[in-house]
């Protein structure tokens, strides 16, 4: 278990010492979200209605943008070979790397989401639902994304392939994430949608590390 914590600590330290990557994700999220009002127009009611969708779509794209660096640097410098050769099961190492990825992308996105909600004049009664939905949904994005990132490692221009592979798998998270916020805005319970997000998280928590580890073994062969 200590090797698990070591991988998380190393990836966090790497992210901290090359801060640009993590900052870029949040910056992309905030900047893209602020572009919509310029394109759609400043009508307050319309923006409030769009808020949930805009937040989720831009968060998805921001995560997508960060996926490439999940394994690529380790693949290029040979670290991935050594991780595959370590006695720790590779799926556990993948889980550690995904956790570090979520801490450096998912958590900043969750922190920035209320800012966008404020910008769009979203009703604050839906804020708890938004935060909870993001909290349950973003880990699934990192986990599912790891499969795509691992599968495209060997391919040239893998960065182009990742969205094609991963975006369809993101759609359930998008649907239930937006539905949770819409329900809260309509004065209904967001609980069923949050439970669905939780279920998706639990499934990907089991499947994604195994699938990504298998893909990584192919990549280092």
């Amino acid at each position, binding site marked *: 278990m200590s*090797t698990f914590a*070591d991988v998380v600590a190393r990836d966090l330290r790497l992210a901290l010492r090359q801060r640009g990557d993590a900052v870029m994700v949040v910056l992309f999220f905030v900047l893209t979200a602020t572009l919509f009002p310029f394109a759609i127009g400043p009508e307050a009611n319309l923006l409030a209605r769009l808020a949930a969708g805009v937040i989720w779509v831009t968060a998805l794209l921001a995560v997508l943008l960060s996926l490439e660096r999940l394994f690529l640097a380790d693949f290029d410098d*040979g670290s991935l*070979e*050594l991780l595959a050769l370590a*006695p720790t099961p590779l799926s556990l190492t993948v889980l550690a790397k995904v956790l570090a990825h979520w801490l450096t992308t998912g958590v900043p996105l969750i922190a920035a989401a209320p800012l966008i909600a404020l910008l769009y004049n979203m009703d604050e009664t839906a804020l708890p639902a938004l935060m909870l939905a993001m909290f349950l949904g973003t880990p699934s994005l990192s986990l599912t994304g790891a499969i795509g990132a691992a599968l495209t490692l060997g391919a040239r221009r893998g960065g182009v392939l990742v969205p094609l592979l991963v975006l369809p798998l993101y759609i359930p998270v998008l649907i239930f994430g937006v539905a949770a916020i819409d329900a809260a805005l309509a004065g209904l319970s967001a609980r069923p949608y949050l439970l669905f997000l939780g279920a998706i998280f639990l499934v990907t928590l089991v499947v994604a590390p195994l699938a990504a580890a298998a893909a990584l073994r192919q990549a280092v062969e």
Partner: protein
Amino acid sequence: MSLFSGRDLVCVRGERQVFADLAFDLAPGGALLLSGPNGSGKSSLLRLMAGLLRPAGGTLTWDGAPVADDPETHRARLRYVGHLTAVKPVLTAAENVAFWARQAGAGVADVERALAGFALTPLAHVAGRLLSSGQRHRVALARLLAAPGDLWLLDEPSVGLDQASLAHLSAAIAAHRAAGGRVAVATHTPIDMPDAQTLSLAEFARAAPVSGGSGW
């Protein structure tokens, strides 16, 4: 006496058969020197021994038991140094070595000794990006000393090393073998290893492609 052996090993890379019917035995304290021209499969054999590559045929056994049955145990006893150094540019030399030592299950105390073994002590707190390629290679080799392992698999360990570092490498290998460790080395430059068995891979090469088509 436990033997690490391979029998009838076949390696296929991208539709091309690299070698076939290859056999070797590596006893405790033994050394295996892999020789052969470029592309004869030296690196592939080392990766096969490590378990990174699956053999297209044949078996690897440790003490009579197939390695494929218990890959975790095999991974715990092997230390692999390949062409890539896995040195992170933003971590210091000591941090790089310490991380891999802990991954292999060793304490931090070994790190200083490992760095000293390759004369890296003055560079311990220098970031990886500031190291020269030879120094980075020495950091990769220091991983061997940081976490003891029975089987060392070294792919071109002498590339980019100066005379002093070569002597360090020879000393490290000698000490490892004296303690009962075994080592397999692929190299073009002679490394001082007394009574090492030489395995010439050119003898096991087969020119014919596996399938009729030439691919694309």
